[in-house]
């Protein structure tokens, strides 16, 4: 199963605003929604731009209300699925799954950088595929960083690996990436079929990524940590045990996704069952609260996705639906599919992969599921081409911040070499404080 292609009537209904004006209005509102999401004035949630923009396209008649409601209805199960996966990952973290994985990383690699990187690749690929790229970026990256620091290894290769794996390893399953969830619905493929088709690109992309890392970080990967006796990593005797229950729930949920395909059950329902199975003991044991579950579901972000989808739909119906097919070939030959991937990769770098996939989906879905998957490979792996995964978004953000002369988006700038360090034999606390005392050049 996996849902039918998005129900989209292409009948043009005459609204209050039509033609060129509607197109211009739609594009302006889309640009405004994305700008607010990237800049986040006063730290407001990204939905602050997209939701009013969605209301405006309807009020101004760029998109008829029935079409807007259609869009919301078609998207609702996907958004629910995303929320469930986000909560699932958060609960796994609360049950200590990530901490245990980090400890294992330290003990199993024994201060050798290449095995450490290899294990980060295995761990990052698994976490991204099963718990989505969010889990890798938000939950796994700090754990890997911590493990690298405790192993006294250079943190650059493993932390970069996390950022890149979040993109590359998110090709495998519909749950691995929000873009996949959207494409999954549009492709009409079953969960198992989707995974089977994406398995080869997933493995190839990971192998290429690993080879590139070995070469690119050759210097960093040549430096083993000194043995503990010589001031190397401290051996941790109190290694936390790998929690069994969350792992079992995850495996069963994953099997459930596959099984649901055959009995025509929505995989979002299976994800919800997995959430309940983890949430009930966690809330009982006070490791999670209803509030923490709600916050993990990222409701403002879900509202942003729905709002953005409505605005993108308006832009498409007003004119972009004529433009995109010109960029995307109407064939499923290999060169045509490669072109689809390239177009998707470029678009993902320009505007982030979420709006990119929303813009491309109606067109590629009409061409067929191979084109949908080709576009998906482009939007998922594309951000890695810019050296740091999803750098495009960061660059936009920095550019905008720099113009206002503010803090460049949580990136630590160099501490100005004023005053030579802290006196008195290296008090770790004061080193830490100086580190946090950042100034912008």
């Amino acid at each position: 199963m996996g849902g039918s292609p998005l129900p989209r009537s292409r009948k043009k209904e005459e609204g209050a605003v039509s033609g060129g004006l509607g197109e211009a209005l739609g594009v302006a509102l889309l640009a405004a929604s994305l700008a607010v999401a990237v800049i986040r004035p006063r730290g407001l949630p990204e939905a602050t731009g997209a939701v009013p923009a969605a209301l405006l396209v309807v009020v101004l008649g760029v998109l008829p209300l029935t079409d807007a409601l259609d869009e919301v209805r078609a998207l609702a199960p996907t958004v629910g699925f995303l929320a469930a996966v986000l909560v699932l990952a958060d609960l796994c973290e609360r049950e200590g799954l990530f901490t245990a994985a980090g400890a294992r990383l330290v003990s199993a690699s024994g201060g050798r950088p290449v095995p450490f990187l290899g294990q980060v690749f295995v761990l990052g690929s698994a976490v991204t595929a099963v718990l989505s790229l969010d889990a890798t970026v938000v939950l796994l990256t700090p754990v890997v960083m911590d493990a690298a620091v405790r192993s006294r290894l250079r943190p650059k290769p493993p932390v970069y690996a996390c950022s890149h794996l979040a993109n590359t390893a998110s090709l495998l399953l519909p749950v691995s990436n929000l873009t996949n969830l959207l494409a999954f619905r549009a492709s009409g493929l079953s969960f198992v079929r989707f995974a089977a088709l994406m398995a080869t690109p997933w493995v190839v992309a990971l192998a290429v990524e690993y080879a590139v890392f070995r070469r690119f970080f050759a210097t960093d990967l040549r430096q083993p940590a000194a043995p503990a006796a010589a001031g190397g990593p401290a051996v941790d005797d109190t290694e936390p045990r790998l929690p069994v229950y969350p792992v079992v729930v995850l495996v069963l949920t994953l099997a459930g996704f596959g099984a649901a395909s055959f009995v025509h059950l929505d995989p979002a329902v299976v994800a919800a069952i997995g959430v309940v199975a983890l949430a009930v003991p966690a809330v009982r044991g006070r490791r999670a609260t209803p509030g923490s579950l709600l916050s993990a579901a990222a409701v403002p972000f879900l509202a942003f996705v729905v709002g953005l989808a409505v605005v993108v739909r308006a832009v498409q119906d007003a004119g972009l639906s004529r433009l995109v097919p010109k960029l995307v070939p109407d064939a499923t030959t290999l060169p045509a599919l490669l072109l689809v991937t390239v177009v998707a990769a470029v678009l993902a770098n320009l505007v982030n992969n979420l709006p990119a996939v929303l813009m491309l989906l109606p067109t590629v879905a009409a061409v067929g599921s191979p084109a949908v998957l080709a576009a998906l490979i482009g939007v998922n792996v594309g951000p890695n081409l810019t050296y740091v995964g999803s750098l495009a978004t960061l660059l936009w953000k920095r550019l905008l911040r720099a113009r206002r002369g503010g803090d460049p988006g949580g990136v630590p700038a160099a501490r100005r070499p004023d005053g030579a360090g802290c006196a008195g034999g290296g008090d770790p606390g004061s080193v830490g404080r100086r580190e946090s005392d950042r100034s912008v050049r």
Partner: protein
Amino acid sequence: MTTVAWVVEGTWTGCVDAARAWAPAEDDVLLLHVTAAEVAEAAAGALAGLMGRGRAQHSPRVEQLTAQGAADLLAAAVQRLGRPARTEARSGRVEREVVAAAEGARLLVVARDGDRSRLGPRSLGAETRFVVDHAPCPVLLVWPDDVPALASIPPPPWGQEPTLRP
């Protein structure tokens, strides 16, 4: 005067040992660690790509861990040095921060961090090569652990040997 020792994960023990052996007794020793700003930047970039999901939990943590890692390493270096020393944790473009910190120093102690299996070539990583190239003070370049055997130097390229004769 100050002797600066550039402390890096993987090679720091050799560097600290060299500082102990070579820094004049009357000198201050400054143990310097520089965190590559790109590490936190990579984490922040990935987070920015999520457009809002999970922002609250994450961003400060990678920076905290970086700072804590630097502090731990410097504390271990002070202990290993076995004499009073100042420490400094910087963050930024590593090679440039090291050069800036070495300004006016009597000596900068640097460990080789390239291919450590033989006596060159490529015994220096890119950052170290920049530091050696641009250092504004004398540099003491040391092998972080065992020095490779003399025989590990590759033979001269074919046909070049005669030109070396007087």
